[in-house]
């Protein structure tokens, strides 16, 4: 019922993702190209990497990646080259810097806090004596009396 927009990409160009004519002859270089393009976003699609996308723009970007690799760029140079032209938005893997540190550190911090709180809770639980809590509260006593009366 969903994935409607995915098809917007398909409508424009009923192609495959990576085309046979794009594949580089050097398998090592091709693997690098695949790895890089798996982390780059197709701008006209939603949440698809250029490696998976069928859109014309994604094809252009794939060819660009391969062109830069053939020109002797390192993986990092290629990514920087693409980001310079298309912006940070193309990176599927958000960089670990600046405000993004919040994103990356949120879960570990949360986990630490969770373990700490659970630790306090468990400590508390293991020190409480059952007798302390088995006692009835005032309200429960009243209710008990009511039940016994009936």
């Amino acid at each position, binding site marked *: 019922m969903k994935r409607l*927009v995915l098809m917007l990409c398909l409508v424009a160009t009923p192609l495959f993702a990576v085309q046979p004519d794009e594949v580089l002859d050097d398998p090592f270089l091709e693997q690098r190209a695949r790895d890089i393009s798996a982390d780059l976003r197709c701008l006209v699609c939603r949440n698809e*990497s250029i490696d998976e996308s069928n859109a014309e723009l994604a094809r252009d970007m794939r060819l660009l990646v391969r062109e830069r690799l053939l020109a002797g760029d390192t993986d990092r140079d290629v990514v920087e080259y693409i980001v310079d032209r298309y*912006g940070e938005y193309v990176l599927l893997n958000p960089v670990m810097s600046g405000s993004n540190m919040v994103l990356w550190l949120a879960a570990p911090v949360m986990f630490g806090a969770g373990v700490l709180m659970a630790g306090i809770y468990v400590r508390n639980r293991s020190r409480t004596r059952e007798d302390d809590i088995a006692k009835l509260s005032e309200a429960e006593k009243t209710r008990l009396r009511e039940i016994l009366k009936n």
Partner: protein
Amino acid sequence: MITELGHFALILAFLTAIAQAVIPLIGAHKRWPGWMAVAEPAATVQFLLTTIAFAALTWAFVTSDFSLRLVTLNSHTDKPMLYKITGVWGNHEGSMLLWVLIVTLFGGAVAWFGANLPPTLRARVLSVQAMIGAAFFAFILFTSNPFLRMASPPFNGQDLNPLLQDPGLAFHPPLLYVGYVGLSMTFSFAVAALIEGRVDAAWGRWVRPYTLAAWLFLTLGIGLGSWWAYYELGWGGFWFWDPVENASFMPWLISVAMLHSAVVVEKRESLKSWTILMAIIAFGFSMVGAFITRSGLLTSVHAFASDPERGQFLLLIIAVAMIGALTLFAMRANVMQARGVFSPVSRESGLLLNNILLSVSCFVVFIGTMWPLVAEMVFNRKLTVGPPFFDAAFTPFMVALGLALPIGSMLPWKRATLGRIMRQLTPVFMLAVAIGMLAWAMQTGRSALGPMGLFLGAWLVGGALVDIWSRTGRGSGRPARLFRLPRADWGKAVAHAGFGVTVAGIAAMVAWEKEDIRVMQVGESMEIAGYALRLDDVGREQGPNYNAIVADFTLSRDGREIGQMRPEKRNYPVAQMPTTEAALNNGFLRDIYVVIGDPQDNGGWAVRTYYKPLANWIWGGTILMAIGGALSLSDRRYRVAAGTRRTPKPAASDEDVQGSKGVPAE
């Protein structure tokens, strides 16, 4: 006429929901039995009226009544009957009607099977459920009415999105919705218990079947969706960390956590406030899921026709439900005092760790999904959070969960010694390490992902086996006793083993997949992972509402033919949309996956081939998890003794606890 009846029934159902929300609540407060008794017949009536509305809409789709706007937009006379019916929920309005139908179905279930609940609690649960129902009835009637007519009906419709014309996707939404909406029931139970001012072991037991059912259907729905993506989208991916996938995954993670923490409430009267909080949040995530799909706030490959007005309405429902429930939660903190006492090494602690890991992994998914929005609004950075982030941030918690699970699941309540459990688990651990090492030795120079996944899978499956075996006690006759164990014990073992199978499948597929892209001429052969694939022919075929290019491949190994594969490339002329239909050769240890592409200038065809090791294990494990849930759900304790209020035995000795076999669903 039938359409108008359906529309009218929907309005009546809305009014019934309002009455059911108000009268029993007052009745329960004032202890007026007559007012409380309104709840059950009202719930039944509400369900029947919504069924009439849904049936009327289905009828309009089946008879292709193009005077209805919704039918025109989403159907076509040439469409096969199956997809005419599934087209009812293949759109925003119809899917909301299905949603609210399930809300009333769950309400009805409490009315019909909830005889064992205390009258006040039942009245309050049904009242809260009706509030949820009323909110969504209003949403449908005021923003997305499926029964709107067209002034001048066209001769034919615009057809359902071709990607949705697939058996896998046809049944993905209903399953998922039963899951999402099932969590509304646990929400209602939580809020009712808070109003009631009583959260005890009995509550933990009453709410469990509903949580289990919701989780079970969520599992099936997510599994089916992922399987559909695998064979339909044409590159064999099974999970994309797409916002809408995440929206279904978050309630799943929380409901798993809740299933486990509710056990602690039921058995040990601890973790009460935590469980109530999980119940509230789980439904919150369900509604956020509906919101994400429909608001267009987050760009997604799933995004429905998005509409700001609908988004605002849904956001309002979510805000009222969450703020109301959480305020109540804060006000009633005193009624959720823990009673059970346990030492740091105990099943309680194990389940606590389970809950921390699951809720933190849910948090990872949540922050990753929402971060692009936050970054743009707060830091003015337009960025993307894609699969690489989720893979890196989510996986460690799942690995930790997998490592701890077999140990935690065998810990006895209250006080445990790790040594004894470790001794029982050592053989399984050694075996799992051996399997991981073997995988490491067989692969050359690749990441540790595959071996690690196989190790975890073996550890989890083996751990589940040891766990169930250890429950048969000592001495002779253990195999016979194995089959007399309560179903909940089996459910637990099967579900845990299923998790292991899925983990192994995912790791193997991601780590050892092979891909081949090339141009093939008819008659040409190629090789992938030891299999030979020959392109025999390419032809054209005409389907009911599409035309297709169909390729014939022969798959063979060592000169022996294994099977024929027929990938298709379809074009739906009405919707003007092509789809790829991959051909799969399924095997226990691998899938071969072939996609046919475009004709090339030299007369050849673009062909994409994949070798996918252990692919079916991903969904096999999912099905095992669901079977585990179903076994647990069918445990007689929830059917027979579900209502009897147990007196907790606070002074139970250690021997008692360890010796009591067959306590369900631990």
